[in-house]
């Protein structure tokens, strides 16, 4: 009876050890996969972020270079051709000459009002470059980069600054992420989580405030959301994973080092981990097999040892007695 109990405990211990090892291994591997994946994603998005940053820098430089050109060249056709060339290269939506009151004139002669609010004074009075969001009738939201220029005139329109605009799609083209077969989504957001540019094809599933979405639609705890909120506000790089009703995702965020912009990447974990998950499963199966073989062998050794010890005791017990009848019964006790 005690032997049977001993063997049962042995079996349970072996199974528990196998299970425990499996779980620990799974946790270890999952953590390793998470760290590996997020580090890989951070690398990808850092690259995209650098492209965005360079694009912004390049456009400031282009506009600065444009100013002396506008001053020196009087031929309006030449100015137009020069700007078109830069536009072709950089992909901005429109070029504007800006007057002192915020009225703009495009290269094609279209006039309108660009509502820059207090930034207008910064541009034309303080003579500092600005970036503003603007809306023109029936057009997507524009991001306008403007720099002060020497007062001049184009098509009899007096201007004091020049500007270029991007709509969100143009801006996102600099963040084109070629990995993940288009399964990833990229965003540019303000420090408070409001998204102002994304590469989403379907508007219906657009996200307008990332932090609000994490709060309301994900399994993320309040503490984790607060941490991300703080990271956004302080411009800190970070990664996280969360689950929604639809899927499980990796979130990568990184400051652009321009205004309070953040670049965000969202990729389903199954896409990022596809190969690593396969490796993890194969490894787990192999470890399980090894553990089972090892466990079985161990049990066989113990049982064999016990059997031999029992045989010895039976032999001792049978010396001088007629054991032919009792021995089978004794074996049956063991098994």
């Amino acid at each position, binding site marked *: 009876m005690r032997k049977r109990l001993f063997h049962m405990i042995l079996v349970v211990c072996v199974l528990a050890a196998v299970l425990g090892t499996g779980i620990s291994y799974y946790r270890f591997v999952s953590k390793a996969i998470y760290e590996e994946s997020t580090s890989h994603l951070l690398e990808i998005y850092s690259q995209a972020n650098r492209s965005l940053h360079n694009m912004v820098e390049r456009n400031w430089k282009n506009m600065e270079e444009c100013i002396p050109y506008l001053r020196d060249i009087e031929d309006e056709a030449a100015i137009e051709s020069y700007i078109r060339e830069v536009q072709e290269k950089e992909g901005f939506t429109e070029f504007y000459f800006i007057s*002192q*009151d*915020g009225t703009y004139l495009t290269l094609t002669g279209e*006039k*309108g*009002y*660009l*509502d820059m*609010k*207090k930034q*207008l*004074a910064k541009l*034309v*009075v303080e003579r500092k470059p600005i970036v*503003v*969001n*603007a*809306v*023109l*009738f*029936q057009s*997507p*939201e524009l991001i306008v980069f403007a720099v002060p220029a020497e007062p001049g005139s184009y098509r009899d329109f007096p201007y004091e600054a020049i500007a270029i605009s991007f709509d969100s799609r143009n801006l996102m083209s600099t963040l084109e992420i070629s990995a993940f077969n288009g399964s990833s989504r990229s965003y540019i957001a303000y420090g*408070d*989580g*409001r*998204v*102002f540019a994304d590469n989403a094809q379907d*508007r219906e599933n*657009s*996200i*307008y*405030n990332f*932090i*609000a*979405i994490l709060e*309301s639609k994900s399994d993320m705890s309040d503490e984790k959301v607060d941490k991300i909120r703080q990271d956004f506000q302080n411009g800190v790089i970070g990664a996280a994973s969360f689950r929604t009703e639809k899927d499980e995702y990796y979130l990568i965020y990184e400051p652009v080092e321009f205004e309070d912009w953040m670049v965000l990447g969202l990729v389903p974990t199954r896409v990022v981990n596809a190969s690593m998950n396969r490796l993890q499963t194969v490894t787990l199966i192999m470890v399980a097999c090894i553990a089972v073989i090892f466990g079985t062998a161990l049990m066989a050794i113990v049982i064999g040892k016990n059997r031999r010890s029992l045989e010895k005791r039976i032999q001792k017990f049978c010396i001088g007695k007629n054991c032919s009848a009792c021995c089978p019964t004794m074996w049956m006790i063991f098994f």
Partner: protein
Amino acid sequence: MRKRIIAIFVVMMLLGCLPACGRGEHEDNESNSITMYLWDFSMTKELTPWLEEKFPDINFEFVVGYNTMDFYSYLEERGELPDILTCRRFSLNDAAGLKERLMDLSGTELVGTFYTSYIENNRDTDNAIKWLPMCAELDGIIANQDVFDAYNVPIPTNYREFADACRIFEENGIGGFYNDYAEDYSCLEAMQGCAIPELMSLEGTSWRMQYESETVDGTTALDEQVWPVVFDKFEQFLKDTYVMPEDINRSFHDSKALFIDNRLAMFRGTVSDCAVLRMENGKNTVILPYFGETEDDNWLLTYPIFQVAVNSAVEQDDGKKKNIMRVLEAMFSEEGQRRAASGNFVLTYNKTVEIELEENLTFAEPCLEQNHMYQRLASTEFFAISRNVVQNMINGVYDADGAYQDFNRQLTTPKEVHAEESAYHIETGYAYTFTEHGSQAVSVVANTLRKQTGADVLIGYSSIITSSIYAGEYTEQQMNWLMNNRAALRQADMTGAQIKQVMDWLVNVKENGANPICHLNQIPVTSGMEYSMKDNGDGSYTLEEVTIDGNAIDENAVYRVNLLGNDNAIDPELFRGCPMPQEIREILEDTEGRAIDRFKAVLSEGGQPEAPTEYVTIR
């Protein structure tokens, strides 16, 4: 013995559970009940019925209140700030007093749907966003194209052509352009409208930002460079539009009547007014901008049709907060905005909404394309001072320079902060809350008015008051806020049969499907008689009995009847589409004074409001 102990234990457990069950149900009801105050009854045209239909799980209480922040401050003082607030007259200065009691919506997904450049206008100094702008109303000049064609006058494209058109019409005995200078908003809009390029100059916008960020008691003066030009231009505008002193009493309806009669070519109005004239009156109308020197200087004047805020108290109830966010998201969806603007909106503040231009905006299209949309400066003090100064200009009290000086003086005079004197006292308070026998507070007002007028019966079209009746002191203004300001009090001698006809008009669904009752808390109120009606379960009701002191009304007897209500909320096709029976309309006479003045008269004479009665039974 053992069984008995178990039985006692089970009973005790059940009894213990009962209060918890009740509490759960109560909490659920509380989470599903939303009180929403409406800045104007026009919100009941399409938006509120649509919300009720869209959210059958929510019990809405829609109350038509007043279009001013002071009204909400008053409700807040009385501890009855509604869950959702709406107001058209808005400036951050005016809203500052309420901001501690409103929810910060800045971190919500909903705020993310707004264009940054628009929503930033509503950001407080502490970065919070408490008010969200609904789509924009466009204000300009409504022109009757048929009148222009009849007199062979081209539709103007700049200020000179506009002035010429006015002259030609006046020479032909036709009104060129009228404005309802009796209203403060019309004075404000006309004055700002005729000098928008100046107001949108660098100096103009810089001054405005400085003015709008001042504190409530601020004394920012008018800009010396911008505003003298504004008054000069407005003075010229008054001359060019042949404004006479009697025009200070002109109402919108005066102008509209002349316009419909083809005796007026243009008047100030909104895109919505323009659409109504097209749809209801068959006029060939178009919207023109406020004209500048050239076509490039033309601008439209805009403002959000209303702003929406949420009481911060709802944050203590997660269920309620979720429900309110659902309602807000619906209101700011494309469908919600179309309902809010009754289909006539041309400018949205949200990225999620797309708009197609309407036919009557052909002449305003260049302004829209050039983004020439000026958001009116609309602080409470600007409304009040604009009317005072503009009317003085029209009366010849002073010229442009005098107007500038006086406006500046009024604007910079430090506002005296003192508690208004208490003018009335009410001893017993009554709740607005609506039950199956009506609202106690509404009944108190109806009973008091009937007693004051000496009528046998009083019938109010809907909930005629704006809040509970509070026990305590009231200032003059607070008492004025008690009743809906559009409710007119009229009287007639009616037979019992005619009274039943009135009740049939106010309760029963019409043959064409028109339903006079848009929300349960707006069913008719009666005094001196009671009625019962059946809830048909689909938002409609059927009148059953009309009784006096429990007996069926005598159809042949004649009663002195007061009718109290706003015909415009029920008659027009665009609202309930239930016109008053002609026979009743013909016998109605106006009464002297407003209903609230009669209510106040009772209190002034030392009286107290009458006790409430159960005026309705809903089966």
